[in-house]
């Protein structure tokens, strides 16, 4: 088969949407909120072209619950929003996790808390990786850092969601959502990871009726405790198999920048600049935030590396890095809050000053 590669300039938001469509997503519900409006508008146009369903829902609450419905009916379904809207979706995400449904949720983060501003931020890391919604559950969290990755990670998200029957979140920021970069993919690409869904509600023809629920009032093997034990087992499986990290020039690095998303790009640039200067600097760029690469970071710590965690927040991921490194003297942090962008010069200065 002749590969027909498409390449065009795209915003991150629209690349995310196209990745979803190419993964076979045929249901999207969303609500306008800056800085992800390009994604909602893109889906309103493209979904119709693909004979899928686009609904501009009455609220982010309604949208996540429409995704619950489409998913329980067996479809690949997605919603998107930005920080305050993702707060509204937390109940729905908890229900989706509890009922073990696949779903993809995109958060194009903006400054908070509250209404905040519409600039890029990473202050929803805790919300995404530590729950956000109630109960003992986890969302798989993917962190793209380029427009291409907005497409690729979203495309992969649907296979992951189906495989594990779990919510998958694409955690990006407003810069990634709105910047334009080249996007390339094969026009003939087909959805991957399509598996049967015997649990989907399609009408009880030729089988026993099914019920979908997260409520577990029973006892013994029907108890909520037992259900949670299974969920924890599932999460351990995901931790064993799905961690993805980019290690950039870490083999001989004495000091390592740890970042994801836009700061990951800035970090890479810092590494290149400092290497030109002869400094042994490396970058750990996380692609999955949950599951988190504790082991990989610990291995680097055991070698004696020092870490500078860079985030667009008051410092959220840094706590997981500290957990991995187990030596607070080796971990420092540089962050900008409320929509500020970390500066290369500041990062370089901090790395040089650390001795």
């Amino acid at each position, binding site marked *: 088969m002749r590969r027909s590669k498409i390449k065009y300039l795209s915003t991150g938001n629209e690349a995310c949407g196209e990745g979803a469509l190419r993964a076979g997503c045929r249901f999207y519900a969303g609500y306008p909120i800056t800085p992800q409006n390009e994604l909602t508008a893109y889906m309103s146009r493209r979904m119709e072209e693909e004979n899928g369903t686009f609904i501009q829902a009455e609220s982010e609450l309604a949208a996540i619950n429409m995704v619950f419905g489409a998913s329980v009916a067996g479809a690949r379904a997605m919603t998107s929003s930005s920080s305050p809207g993702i707060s509204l979706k937390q*109940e729905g995400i908890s229900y989706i996790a509890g009922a073990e449904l696949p779903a993809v949720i995109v958060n194009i983060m903006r400054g908070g808390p509250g209404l905040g501003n519409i600039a890029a931020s990473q202050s929803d890391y805790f919300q995404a990786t530590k729950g956000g919604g109630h109960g003992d559950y986890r969302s798989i969290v993917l962190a793209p850092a380029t427009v291409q990755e907005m497409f690729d990670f979203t495309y992969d998200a649907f296979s992951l969601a189906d495989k594990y029957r779990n919510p998958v979140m694409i955690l990006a920021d407003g810069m990634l959502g709105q910047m334009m970069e080249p996007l390339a993919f094969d026009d003939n690409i087909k959805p991957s990871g399509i598996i049967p869904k015997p649990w989907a509600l399609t009408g009880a023809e030729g089988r026993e009726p099914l019920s979908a629920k997260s409520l577990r009032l029973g006892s013994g093997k029907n108890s909520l405790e037992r259900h949670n034990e299974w969920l924890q087992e599932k999460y351990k499986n995901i931790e064993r198999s799905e961690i993805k990290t980019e290690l950039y020039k870490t083999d001989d690095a004495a000091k390592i920048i740890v970042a994801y998303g836009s700061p990951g790009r800035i970090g890479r640039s810092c590494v290149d600049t400092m290497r030109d200067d002869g400094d042994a600097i490396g970058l750990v760029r996380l692609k999955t935030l949950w599951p988190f690469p504790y082991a990989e970071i610990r291995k680097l710590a055991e070698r004696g590396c020092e870490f500078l965690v860079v985030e667009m927040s008051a410092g959220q991921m840094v706590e997981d890095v500290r957990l991995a490194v187990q030596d607070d003297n080796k971990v420092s942090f540089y962050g900008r809050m409320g929509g500020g962008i970390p500066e290369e010069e500041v990062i370089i200065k901090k790395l040089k000053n650390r001795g």
Partner: protein
Amino acid sequence: MGKTYTRPNSMKDVLTHYCPGCGHGMVHRIICEVIDELDVRETTIAVAPVGCAVLAYDYWNFDTTEAAHGRTPAVATGIKRIHPDKLVFTYQGDGDLAAIGTAETIHAGNRGENISIIFVNNGVYGMTGGQMAPTTILGQITATSPYSRRSEKEGFPLKIMEMMAVLPGVTYLERTMLTSPKEVIKTKKAIKRSFKRQLDKKGFSMVEILSPCPTYWGLSPLESIKRIENEVVATYPVGVIKEDK
């Protein structure tokens, strides 16, 4: 022609947890009779509420999903858009439909989603201990209106069906009650009409059913159905509110 009557096939052979004289048992049974008569058990997907009927999937012999409180019409929207030829209905109480779920109810109707909503109105929040509902009538004492519902402090009973009637996407609305065999049969006819309209792709419909809650009305089952006849129906008159062709 047989005169036999047995439990409908779409109703599982289990005992329910509902209180003696609760309307849920009657509405469940009627829905199951209609589904049997329309022969759509295998192509029905229902959405259960949060409320006393949260366990409805334990009683119904067809595919059923839970939904977060009030989001039931949104979940039903997702299902119906994926399976437009299946019978998709929601089953909701007064909190689910007219409090936390008001936006979802109105917008599903406004979009003209081709679904059926069965609204069981008993004027209280039963599952959580008898608190005031949007449909609690003036003067009614509940766990959170211990001085009775007073319009100046607690507002008025919400007549959501009448509100929905102005939406062009809403094509059939009928209110019924469970107070006598005649009214129960009318309720069944209304539910059947709603389901048939959906199968004929005639758009959004809702049936509101005035239902007894003996436990939280502090009345016997028989006194409860008298109360619907003597008090509730004055605020919530029964009949067809809207029916498009």
